[in-house]
């Protein structure tokens, strides 16, 4: 496993990839992607046992589901950087005939993607099904999932949250990207989430809090979450992040949910993000 110093280097390159991908097509979602970069980098370069040769069934490996599919740029970059496909393919993001669709899909057979996502609120159910399949297969590996906090407005999540507690799905680690922002503004204003930590606990989950933009904390909490698996409770991580993290003029602004930087803003962003692994 890469140490946290190494993970920070990778994360810097992933952030460069994100802003370059979104800039190149002048569309996509940089804000949440940048906020979740440290988490996804940690998963794919540290926490998960996974095979970039990619097998859809994912037997005898840890698997990950991205429910908030609009943050595809960070997902694609991390998949490419960890060997699922050539990083050069990142240049095709959102373009015609690309496997890197605006939102992730299995339809074009991009290695690393196990279900389509983008229409929100569906990923936790899928993760629960995959977790049940692992149990039926006697596979001790884990299922990880990521969800937006705004995405929790969708009722299907609460069906899934209730199910997971009732059925004691203890091989699932679901992380909520709690950046407090959604398209129309702060989550507190659009649709208040209240005390998320307490809500998950009341549904029977083991809940951990994490600073999703502090690599040491991310590794510490994810390791702790893994150690809690198999104890009769599903595990939720409430991950505090800053939307747009790593690019100062984007940080904390919901306006950067789904717009692309212009040429000048790209230059400004890249100046803040050291090129550590070589641009694609």
């Amino acid at each position, binding site marked *: 496993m890469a140490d946290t110093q190494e993970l920070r280097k990778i994360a810097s390159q992933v952030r460069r990839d994100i802003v370059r991908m979104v800039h190149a097509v002048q569309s996509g979602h940089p804000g949440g992607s940048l906020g979740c970069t440290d988490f996804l980098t940690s998963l794919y370069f540290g926490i998960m046992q996974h095979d970039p040769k990619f097998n859809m069934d994912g037997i005898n490996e840890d698997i990950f589901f991205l429910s908030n599919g609009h943050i595809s740029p960070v997902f694609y970059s991390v998949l490419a950087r960890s060997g699922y496909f050539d990083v050069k393919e990142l240049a095709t993001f959102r373009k015609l005939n690309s496997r890197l669709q605006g939102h992730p899909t299995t339809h074009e057979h991009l290695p690393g993607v196990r279900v389509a996502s983008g229409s929100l609120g569906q990923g936790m159910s899928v*993760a*629960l099904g995959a977790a049940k399949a692992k149990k039926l297969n006697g596979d001790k590996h884990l299922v990880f999932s990521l969800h937006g906090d705004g995405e929790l407005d969708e009722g299907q999540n609460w*069906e899934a949250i209730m199910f997971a507690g009732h059925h004691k799905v203890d091989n699932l680690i679901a992380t909520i990207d709690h950046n407090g922002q959604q398209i129309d503004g702060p989550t507190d204003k659009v649709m208040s989430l209240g005390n998320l930590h307490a809500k998950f606990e009341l549904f029977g989950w083991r809940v951990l809090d994490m600073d999703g933009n502090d690599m040491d904390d991310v590794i510490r909490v994810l390791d702790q979450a893994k150690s809690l698996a198999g104890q009769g409770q599903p595990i939720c991580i409430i991950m505090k992040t800053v939307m747009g993290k790593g690019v100062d003029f984007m940080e904390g602004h919901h306006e950067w949910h789904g717009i692309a930087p212009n040429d000048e803003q790209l230059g400004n962003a890249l100046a803040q993000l050291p090129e550590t692994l070589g641009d694609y």
Partner: protein
Amino acid sequence: MLKDIQVQNEKETRGGFGEGIYEIGKANPNVVVLTADLAGSMKLGPFIKEFPERFVQVGIAEANMIGIAAGLTIGGKIPYTTTFANFSTGRVYDQIRQSVAYSNKNVKICASHAGLTLGEDGATHQILEDIGLMKMLPGMTVIVPCDFNQTKAATKAVADYNGPVYLRFGRPKWPNFTKEDGSDFVIGKAQVLSEGTDITIFACGHLVWKAIEAGRILEEKGYSVELINIHTIKPLDEEAVIKSLAKTRCAVTCEEHNVLGGLGDSIAHVAARNLPVPIEYVGTQDTFGESGNPKELLTKYGLDTPNIVAAAEKALNRKKNG
């Protein structure tokens, strides 16, 4: 001849599902069954008793059920979701669209209580749009078996058929006449129940039996009737449809579904492109249903035997005068 078709007994098509799921569960250890609080109505008792670890009770949460089913395929399971047709389709359309169809997951969506024959519960539960909804999804296979034996056969057959499937059946006891061993059912292959030269009746589901009754009346009137059970609406056996229309040059379609978007439109689509001939539709006329017993409802909404006879005579007249 249609008069030669023998009824073995009267049984619920959902009961065929219940027997089929038990047998395929026994034969295939990857089969997993999910339900949204309707295990009894879906006749899951024997499966649950023998394979409790492969049964998933989701509660009244159909959206979650579809997603969990999609996830179960990742790891090689063959999930069957079970609830009423209304809650299997319209309620969860986007979940099926994204997590199952677009993601090409091997999920079997099994839907009972379809159409008017659900009866007294009324229009909130009597979906008449589900065939259309499901056949519109790229990659979705749509199967509407006609009786108990065929529902049992289809339930077992879809396990070995890779890809998403919508399997639609119903609530009431209904004449059971196809082969007990299901050997006359092949996914995607139209079932010719009688050969004829004057008119083709295409039917699916419960209305296959009504079409047999109507065909017998037409035979007594001296017509030569070709009756084809289109149990697989998608992928449609276009070759069989074209072959029959080329011979009879007029048709009636019969379904317990809105005439917009169902079996009739699928047949007409083939005819329009290949062989435009007069076609009459028997189905609900862009309306919701209501409470009542199944027989009364089929009569009131024009899906009964006399309606099929009348539609056939109209098509025959159009052919004659065309």
